[in-house]
């Protein structure tokens, strides 16, 4: 398998697909797991969708391709979480998905021993507007994948695939972050105001986030109402600030919120910014090992307090 | 993974002594680093570090001298390697002192008309050998193990002190010299005066003090059964080597204790020709001992 200078060889994904199918069949046949959460081909060519396979014969339906954008961790805590009642569950996870799984373990939502994690080596997935017939390239790869540091998952039960040398992609998200940081506060305010004003409060970002697993969201409460619920600019601003704050130190960086947003609000910029701040302040990074406490649930006596008078 | 070759490279601040009375320290350092394939590039136009006198007379001057040297070293690639214990101490003290004293720093930067580089890592040769190069790699490079040679490692005052400044090793009970020379196959002795003062520059003003203090050191080394001393400081070397005859006369006790720079012994072990290690400039002739141990 080689990648030409500009594109990522689809063979890489084909090899992973074969290995995922074999592993899924094995663990289903042996009864080691009750179900495998993975992706299967979508109805339209070049697409993929999440699936839950319980029959070893159906293991061949599983695929891994640049269209496998969804973070499947979501399916264990929210949508389809009833599947966990059946027994041990296998789940196919890219590096970014695995960080979400690990985060959920740290938050007492998942137990490592109840999962069989099939890590997949991932060179990247498609961006939202990509032409699905083309291999991954500068033009088609998702923003988050351009600066990915977790191509190869660790601490899995099995990891399939081999990473080859990848083309260099322009780090668009970092560049955008730097651009924003260079602005004056007033400029940043109008940037976000413009974006948030478009928000229609469909809460797709919340639905798709593996960490938004609360039974009742603070923002839906009316006694007291902390955040206005109508899609007016004031409430939108509050919603997005609260959302970013609640994910600070927890977000795994899968960028599903941004992908799911119908109004194209660059939500992952907020997540990325908070992740970087917490790394700089407290050395915290979402990783492959569950942490007992996140950066905002622990402290050191000598934490920075230069901002406090 | 095979050990990386040619990766280590350092800027080098020899200091005045190494260009004069301690020429053999300089020669053996260069020889050793060449043999180990560690890059060493001398900082151009370096100045005196101020040594022990400057800071007693004019603090600003002593800090500025070192600051200037750090600024000069900035132009040369690699961490700054220093051989002389006093230069090492002064450079480290300067960085330590200016790091949390903005007012002083402003003064110094005015004096040297430039920025001070507080971030440039200043490393003693021992640190480079033990930590960067690695003791295993050092041991692997040894052609002629110093077997049978009992060495008393002498640290003197400045290598590890004051606490928190040089951060070379444990302040009062260091082992880095022992570890380095043991990697070259020598045997080290456990002795009491490893960290005592040799009398330093009283050697000119009050030689009596030096005779007493250096005498104690030599006695202690001898008591522990050492064949020789190993040092990392030109001034200590001077007191222990040049004054040894006088000490013998004063105490009536014969020592015959060659005083090596650590690089001389290490270079010998890794196969540098003895003729290039300046053994002839030592007052206490080391050759009988080295011959006896089959090392030359």
């Amino acid at each position, binding site marked *: 398998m080689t990648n030409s200078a500009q594109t990522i060889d689809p063979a890489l994904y084909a090899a992973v697909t074969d290995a995922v199918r074999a592993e899924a069949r094995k663990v289903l046949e042996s009864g080691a797991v009750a179900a495998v959460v993975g992706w299967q081909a979508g109805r339209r060519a070049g697409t993929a969708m999440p699936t839950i396979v319980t029959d070893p014969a159906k293991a061949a339906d599983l695929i891994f391709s640049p269209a496998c954008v969804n973070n499947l961790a979501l399916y264990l805590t929210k949508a389809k979480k009833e599947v966990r009642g059946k027994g041990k569950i296998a789940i196919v996870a890219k590096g970014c998905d695995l960080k979400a799984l690990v985060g959920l373990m740290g938050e007492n939502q998942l137990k490592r021993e109840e999962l069989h994690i099939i890590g997949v080596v991932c060179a990247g997935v498609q961006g939202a507007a990509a032409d699905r017939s083309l291999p991954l390239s500068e033009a088609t790869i998702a923003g988050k994948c351009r600066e990915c540091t977790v191509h190869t998952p660790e601490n899995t039960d099995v990891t399939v695939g081999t990473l080859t040398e990848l083309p260099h992609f322009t780090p668009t998200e970092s560049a955008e972050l730097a651009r924003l940081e260079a602005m004056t506060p007033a400029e940043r305010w109008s940037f976000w*105001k413009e974006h948030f004003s478009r928000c229609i409060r469909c809460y797709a970002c919340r639905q798709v986030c593996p960490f938004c697993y609360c039974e009742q969201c603070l923002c839906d409460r009316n006694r007291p109402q902390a955040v206005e619920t109508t*899609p007016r*600019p004031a409430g939108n601003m509050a919603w997005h600030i609260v959302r970013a*704050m609640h994910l600070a130190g927890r977000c795994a960086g899968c960028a599903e919120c941004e992908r799911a947003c119908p109004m194209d609000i660059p939500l992952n910029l907020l997540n990325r910014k908070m992740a970087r701040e917490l790394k700089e*302040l407290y050395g915290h990074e979402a990783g492959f090992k569950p942490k007992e406490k996140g950066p905002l649930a622990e*402290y050191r006596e000598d934490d920075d307090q230069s901002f406090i008078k | 993974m095979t050990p990386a070759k040619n990766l280590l490279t350092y800027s080098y601040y020899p200091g005045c002594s190494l260009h004069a009375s301690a020429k053999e320290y300089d020669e053996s350092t260069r020889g050793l680093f060449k043999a180990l394939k560690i890059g060493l590039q001398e900082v151009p136009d370096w100045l005196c570090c101020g040594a022990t006198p400057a800071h007693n007379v004019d603090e600003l001057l002593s800090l500025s001298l070192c600051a200037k040297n750090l600024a000069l070293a900035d132009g040369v690639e690699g961490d700054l390697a220093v051989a002389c214990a006093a230069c090492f101490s002064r450079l480290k003290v300067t960085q330590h002192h200016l790091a949390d004293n903005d007012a002083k720093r402003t003064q110094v930067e005015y004096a040297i008309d430039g920025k001070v580089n507080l971030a440039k890592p200043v490393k003693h040769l021992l640190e480079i050998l033990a930590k960067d190069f690695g003791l295993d790699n050092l041991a692997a490079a040894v052609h002629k193990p110093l077997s049978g040679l009992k060495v008393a490692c002498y640290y003197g005052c400045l290598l590890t002190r004051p606490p928190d400044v040089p951060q070379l090793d444990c302040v009062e009970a260091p082992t880095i010299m022992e570890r380095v020379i043991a990697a070259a196959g020598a045997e080290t002795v456990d002795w009491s005066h490893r960290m005592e003062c040799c009398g330093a520059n009283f050697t000119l003003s009050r030689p009596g003090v030096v005779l007493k203090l250096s005498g104690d050191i030599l006695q202690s080394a001898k008591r522990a059964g050492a064949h020789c001393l190993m040092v990392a400081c030109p001034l200590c070397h001077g007191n222990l080597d040049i004054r040894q005859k006088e000490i013998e006369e004063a105490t009536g006790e014969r020592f015959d204790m060659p005083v090596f720079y650590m690089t001389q012994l290490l270079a010998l072990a890794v196969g540098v020709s003895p003729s290039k290690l300046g053994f002839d400039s030592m007052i206490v002739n080391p050759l009988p001992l080295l011959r006896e141990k089959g090392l030359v």
Partner: protein
Amino acid sequence: MHAHKENHDFEPKIIAFVCTWCTYAGADLAGTSRMQYPANTRVVKFPCTGRIDPVFILRAFQKGADGVLVSGCHPGDCHYMAGNFHARRRFAAFRALLDFIGVDLQRLQFSWVSAAEGGKWVEVATELTERVRALGPMREFKELEAEEQWSGVIDTPELQEAYNNIP
């Protein structure tokens, strides 16, 4: 001290979220010591800075505060041992977020004021009031409150007239 009252064009609303053990007591001490400071500050008492949710700060700005002060016990003095340590991290993060959104951080002050620091309370409250007074009203959130979107946009004269005619 009977300084004459200065008239300012703008008097900011300052809300102070303070812990009951240190800063509230410090503010009490400023009172018993008859120290003087601008009358703009409204104090909301909490058991501990650890109880202060960033949402409160956000809500305060939305409800018209021009400046927010958050103050509690010095590190190590927390009545609950660690509440202020947790708060310190939470606010460091929240501050960074607000900054990134474009909120002027000069309007948000954090401080440690102990029960013995009546003078410091006065200093902190005065400084923030004067700074915010110079900055002028916190327009950003207030303007947002007034803005409508979607069906609420009154963008034709007819709509405007209808809107004006609402009794």
